[in-house]
């Protein structure tokens, strides 16, 4: 939707440029997240991780990518062909669409034009992201079903059950934030977190009493992205590789990318919702004014991704029943309690 002082043409052009940049950054980030993961896990396990391809193995992602592209693309017999192909595309495209709604910073002035650092800003961005992530379940579920393999099916079943279950807790954990900020717009949420108490405690939501919500969100997000300790849908010891057992080559790469880009999205959201987004000390020349928020934001995202990897290297996998009861019997009541307390406090204060 044309906004501010931009004409339609410039809006379209700016959008295309933004999309290109964001996608490029995202895909690179995804690639290097994989590298980072291998590296960090390696160090946690007293290994080196990738070292051969490029300095510190920095070119490893490139090699991986090449390998994916040139692998033979196998389609097993007896699969439901249409859905089998659709599933990874669905998964990847949903995760890419989600990132479009994430703002990376305030708007910047380029050549007299006020361009927001975000592909789309809507009033209900958060809702749309929730909607898209809920659609993403189809990718996993359909992959599991269409492969016509029992491992895949079980993985798909687990994935969809798990994602639905944790989505409830995830959604509820956001309600506290929404009550505090009073908007669905991610931009608005960040703006509501600017400023500090006593000059040094930032007014982030996590410090406004949403730390329980924050932890619920983190845990639910791990489950939503099928990460350890909630990676039962692809638990290799039981299910070979879960829903993507039968996938290979680029189709497998799509799932892979979808998973990591989801991680990035989730990390971005966590930063925006709980840690103040791109807020931070801004100083120096105008160029720094423009870049520093992006830097602060990237820092937070990086932190979350690191935690992801850290957790993966540390924690064992849950059992399936533990996973479910954890969601319904622990996270959900906790989230509801958090919502109620937050609402009560807000109501009493006003």
């Amino acid at each position, binding site marked *: 939707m044309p906004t501010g002082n931009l004409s339609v043409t410039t809006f379209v052009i700016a959008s295309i440029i933004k999309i290109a940049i964001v996608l490029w950054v995202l895909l690179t980030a995804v690639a290097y997240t994989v590298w980072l993961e291998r590296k960090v896990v390696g160090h946690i396990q007293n290994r080196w991780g990738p070292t051969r391809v490029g300095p510190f193995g920095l070119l490893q992602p490139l090699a991986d990518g090449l390998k994916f592209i040139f692998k033979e693309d196998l389609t097993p017999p007896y699969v439901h062909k249409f859905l089998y192909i659709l599933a990874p595309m669905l998964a990847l495209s949903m995760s890419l669409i989600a990132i479009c709604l994430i703002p990376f910073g305030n708007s910047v002035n380029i050549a007299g034009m006020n361009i927001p650092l975000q592909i789309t800003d809507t009033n*209900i961005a958060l*809702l749309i992201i929730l909607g898209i*992530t*809920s*659609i993403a379940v189809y990718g996993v*579920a359909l992959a599991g*079903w269409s492969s016509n393999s029992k491992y895949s099916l079980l993985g798909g*079943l687990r994935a*969809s059950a798990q994602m639905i279950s944790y989505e409830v807790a995830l959604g509820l954990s956001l309600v506290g934030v929404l009550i505090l900020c009073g908007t669905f717009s991610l931009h608005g949420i960040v703006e509501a977190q600017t400023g500090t108490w006593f000059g040094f405690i930032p007014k982030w939501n996590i410090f406004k009493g949403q730390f329980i919500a924050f932890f619920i969100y983190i845990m639910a997000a791990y489950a939503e992205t099928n990460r350890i300790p909630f990676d039962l849908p692809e638990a290799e010891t039981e299910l070979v590789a879960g829903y993507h057992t039968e996938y290979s080559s680029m189709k497998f790469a799509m799932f892979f990318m979808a998973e990591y880009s989801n991680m990035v999205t989730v990390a971005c959201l966590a930063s925006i919702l709980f840690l103040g987004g791109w807020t931070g000390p801004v100083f120096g020349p105008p160029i720094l004014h423009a870049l520093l928020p992006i830097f602060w934001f990237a820092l937070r995202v990086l932190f979350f991704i690191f935690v992801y990897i850290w957790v993966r290297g540390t924690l064992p996998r849950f059992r399936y029943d533990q996973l479910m009861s954890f969601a319904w019997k622990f996270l959900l009541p906790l989230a509801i309690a958090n919502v109620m307390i937050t609402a009560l406090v807000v109501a009493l204060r006003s």
Partner: protein
Amino acid sequence: MLHLALFLIFGVIAVVGAINLIAQTHPINSALSLVVVMGSLAAEYLLLGAEFLGAIQVIVYAGAIMVLFVFTIMLLNAGAEEQTRGSKVAIIIGIPGMVIGSVAVAWALIRAHTGAEVPVGSLYGSAQGIGHLLFRDFLLPFEITSVLILIAIMGAVVLARRES
């Protein structure tokens, strides 16, 4: 113009999806067709300015209800449906009834003065607006809905639980 084009595109998608829902024999195809219908309806809602509803439509319908359907289909490993003859009552009463009903609705719609064109988003269904209504005028239904959901949860547990 753009509005009409978008309406037509999503409308056609919705109708095709609906027909596909009936035409497909495998439930999972039907389910996905329905998801398509729901998605295009979400777009229609946006065209009508109901932005909150559009999002909720995707989250609740496509993202929750239909996932449940797909989940159930997978769980039961339901195959393509058998072509049995079906209930005679349904055919004898249902089809003529449907025809009569459609004619009646069509007649009513033709006679109703709803040809008015309403500009895009003239009624802006923002989250705030709906929220205000929900927590004021529609407070009681909103609260009572919790009873409904409680019953549904309880029922689902009771019915689907395996007897020891």
